Every structure is written in structure tokens, then in C-alpha cells.
């Protein structure tokens, strides 16, 4: 399937348990480069859990067990030689609720580069501007970079969070329902932004919103009860779903 695209991330036989409850069952998936891949499915279906396995944010959950393989550009990410900080620098994440640090806008964006060892002021200024432009919020905040990021509106905060993720120059961006806490106008701004970003980044989003998935994603993966039911081109999945359960879900019969 889709052999002409180079997969950036490949999961094979991925299984995950929280304690004794299984949250992912035998997931196989190839995530293509510079495309938007949407993960959809009802609440608790495992889509967010799967997203978090990709940058190992599940490591933080106590009692979690992971089996199977996840490769990022050929590198097995759960192998002991992988430094999780390197992985998370390559694979950025934007969360459901905007979570800027209680610091200035500038310090928020500079946090990642500083962590990874950039101290040069001119270089940091450059990165901050580039990232904020990349997240389409530079014009709105350029005059108040020293103000607290918490003074911004929810939509602006979320774009600052995206800029913050871009500042460490990631390869892949994971977005966990990044617009679900926002108003429609902010949502459409972020959707436009995602359209832009996919020219330079591989993007994986989790969304509850079917319209959003059809609007912005190239590929779509439908999860149900921890299983990957169907995976393919978004257009095709929403017009001629292969599986009954997918059809039931996208036509709103459950979930």
C-alpha cells in the first residue's frame, strides 16, 4: 500500500497495556513524509495513546507496557540506545489544551533551543522570529515578546505552542486534538497553518472532528477499541470505506 511514499514512522505489531488493560492491539501503520495523517475514532479508542507512543510520552505513565516495534526513519525508538530527549526533539508535540509556560512569549519559544544548548542571543532571536512566523503569529506578538504568554487568547496561545514546538526544528509534529479547546475562528487559523506546515513537516493529528479530518488530512486512520480498523487515503476512506465499522463511525451511527 502506497509504496511510492517514504514512511517516516513505521509501527509493526504495536501493543500497549496500562497495567492489565490493553489499549493498543497489534497496530501496523506507515506514516508518510510531508503529509497530514489524521487519527480518528471514538473516545477511548487508543488514538491518543498511539500518538503518544510515537514520541514516547507514554513512558511517563506508571505501569505502562509496550510490545512490538516503532521505527522512526529506520531507528527502533524503544531500543535502549535511543536517548528519549533526541527522539522528542525530532518528533514535536502540541497538546489539546494550550499549555504555554508561565513565562514571556520569547522565553517560551527559546526554551527548547536553550535546552538543547543554544545560548547565543542573536541566534535565539533569529529562531524565535522564524518559529513565530512559521506558526503564523509573528505579526500579532512581535511587539510584546517580553509579555507573559498567558496574556494571549486561547487560539494565540496554541499557535505559540506550535511555534515553541517548531523552534527545536523537529521533523515530525504530533498534534493531540490541538483545536478542540478553541473557538471556530482560531480553529480555522490553525487548520490553515497545518496546511502550510505540511510542506516542511510530517504531521500526525488526532481529531474528534470528522470535517476537520476531511478538510486537512491526506491519510486517515480509524481506531476502534485499540485496533487499527482501517487506514488509507482520506478521500477514499470518507467516500468508500472498506470496513462496515468505519462506515458506521463516519456516518455518525456511533461514537
Amino acid at each position, binding site marked *: 500500500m502506497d509504496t511510492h511514499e517514504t514512511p517516516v514512522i513505521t509501527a509493526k505489531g504495536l501493543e500497549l497495556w496500562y497495567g492489565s488493560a490493553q489499549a493498543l492491539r497489534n497496530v501496523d501503520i506507515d506514516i508518510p513524509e510531508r503529509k497530514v495523517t489524521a487519527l480518528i475514532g471514538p473516545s477511548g479508542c487508543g488514538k491518543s495513546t498511539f500518538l503518544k507512543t510515537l514520541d514516547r510520552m507514554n513512558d511517563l505513565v506508571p505501569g505502562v507496557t509496550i510490545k512490538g516495534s516503532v521505527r522512526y526513519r529506520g531507528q527502533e525508538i524503544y531500543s535502549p540506545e535511543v536517548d528519549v530527549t533526541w527522539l*522528542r526533539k525530532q518528533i514535536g508535540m502540541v497538546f489539546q489544551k494550550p499549555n504555554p509556560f508561565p513565562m514571556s512569549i520569547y522565553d517560551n519559544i527559546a*526554551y*527548547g533551543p536553550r*535546552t538543547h544548548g543554544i545560548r547565543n542571543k542573536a541566534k535565539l532571536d533569529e529562531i524565535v522570529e522564524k518559529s513565530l512566523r512559521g506558526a503564523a503569529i509573528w505579526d500579532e506578538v512581535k511587539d510584546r515578546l517580553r509579555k507573559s504568554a498567558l496574556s494571549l487568547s486561547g487560539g494565540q496561545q496554541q499557535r505559540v505552542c506550535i511555534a515553541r514546538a517548531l523552534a527545536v526544528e523537529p521533523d515530525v509534529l504530533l498534534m493531540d486534538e490541538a483545536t478542540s479547546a478553541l473557538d471556530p475562528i482560531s480553529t480555522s487559523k490553525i487548520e490553515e497553518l497545518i496546511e502550510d506546515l505540511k510542506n516542511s513537516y510530517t504531521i500526525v493529528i488526532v481529531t474528534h472532528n470528522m470535517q476537520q479530518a476531511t478538510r486537512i488530512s491526506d491519510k486517515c486512520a480509524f481506531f476502534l477499541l485499540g485496533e487499527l480498523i482501517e487506514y488509507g487515503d482520506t478521500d477514499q476512506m470518507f467516500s468508500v470505506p472498506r470496513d462496515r465499522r468505519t462506515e458506521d463511525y463516519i456516518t455518525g451511527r456511533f461514537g
Partner: protein
Amino acid sequence: MSSQSSPAQAARPGVKKKGFRERLELLMNAIFFLCGAVAVAFVLFISIYLIVSGLPAIREIGLIDFLFGERWASTAKDPAFGILPFILTSVYGTAGAIVVGVPVGFMTAMFLSKISGKKTAGVIRTAVDLLAGIPSVVYGLIGMTVLVPAVRVAFDLASGACLLAAIVVLAVMILPSIISVSETALNAVPKEYEEASLALGATEIETYFRVSAPAASSGIAAAVVLGIGRAIGEAMAIMMVAGNVANMPSLFASVRFLTTAIASEMSYSSGLQRQALFSIALVLFLFIMIINVALNVLLKKSRKEG
């Protein structure tokens, strides 16, 4: 009341009872209000008492001579009542205790809040509570019998009872308050901040020190201010280790704090000397009130953030 035929009559006792109940309610309301008012009365009483008894000596000695005089010789033929040595000793002693105690307390709080498992944290918290419960004279006794001789030997002094010994004792004594207030502040840091930092490729330790600690800064500041209040108000423990001579402060000099200046002469003082002690108490009280206000402001701010 045998007949219930007339509703007006039947209602009567009810009305009467209500009247009694209303009066009881008013009475209880008044009693409870008085209980609450007593706390305010106590504060006013203490403030007024300290001001009224503290002012005469200041007026007699002169505010500048009193606050900035470097010589305290209350029982000399030509007495001098300058309390600068006490003020500076209290300030230096407190600062020293903060410099030693805050890093240890903050680090312990960080360990409790972020690193340790539930069980270990429970054990350490019990230890911290116990440290807080140890009476100050017990700290003083240990300081006097262990620390003071150790300081004397280590620095080759004539006597180990000095500012340094007092600083160490104070640092240990303020540790519990610093730990518990900082831990509360660190626990209140939203998990989202830490997740965001980790997702950017920061390590856990980097996250705790560069995101969690700044996010909890008002609470940690409150912990420091609380520590200052505790240290500046402590009397008995440092009475037993600081030597109690009215010197200008230096690390190895025998010194007197504001608190110990009051305590050490109270039992035999009279006249202007005694009134000057009240004035010292007034100065200490002003320090404490400023610290209290700062503490309240910081705690409110930190609760808002958390």
C-alpha cells in the same frame, strides 16, 4: 390548648416558640461573633501594648541613637542604648540561615514532589513534621553541647558560641517550613507545563528546575519569607548557642539577636533599661508585621497561580 378547632389559637404557640428561637439565634450569632472578634482584639491588644510600652524609651534615647547606635551598655555607669548590633545580628543571622536552609529545603521539597515514590515521600514527610515538632530548647541543647564545641575546635576559637553556630541551628529549625511550603507550591504546578517541556526534548531534571520551579516561584518565595519570619522570631535556641554578648556581628563573634536581647535582660532589668527592651520588642514586631504582609501577598499570588 385542648381544642384544635381554632387555627389562630393553634398557631399561637408556634409563633411564641419562633420568637424564642429567633432570640436564641441572635444570641448564638452574637456569641460566635464575639469569639471571632476576640482574635482581632488580641492582635490590636498586642500591637497597642507593644507600641505604647515601646515608644517612651525611643523618645528618651532618640530614634536615630536607638536604631543606629552601635553600643549597647545598659548597665554601665554611662549607659548606651544603641541596638544596631542586635538589628544587624538578626538580619545577618536570618540571611545566613536562609542561605544555608533554603537550598537544602528547596531540594528536599523537589525530591518529595517530583522524584520520590509515594512510600518514600511519606517517610520523609513524617521526618519533616517531626523536625518541625522538636521544641526549640532541644535544638538549643544539642547546639550547645555538640555544635558549639565543634565550631570551637574546627575554627580554633576561644569559644564556639557565635553567630555561625546560631546560623546553623536556625537553618535546621526553618527547614521544615521551607520544605512543606515549597512542596505544596511544586505540587500545584500543572502537569501540562511539565509535559510540554518533556515533549520538547528536555530531561526530567531540566524540566523540574527550568519549568516547575519558575512556575512555583511565588510559593517558593512564600516559603523563604516564612523561613525569614521563623528565623527572626526564634529566641530560646539561639540564646543557648550565640553567646549573648552585644557585639557588632561577625561570623565568629559572640552575638545578641533582637529576640535574645529582650530575653537575656528581661529578668533583672528596670527603669530605662527595661523600657528600652520594650522598644526592641517593638522593632522586632515591626519586622514581623512587614514579613507577615509579604507572606500573605505571596501566598495569595501562589494560590492564584496553582
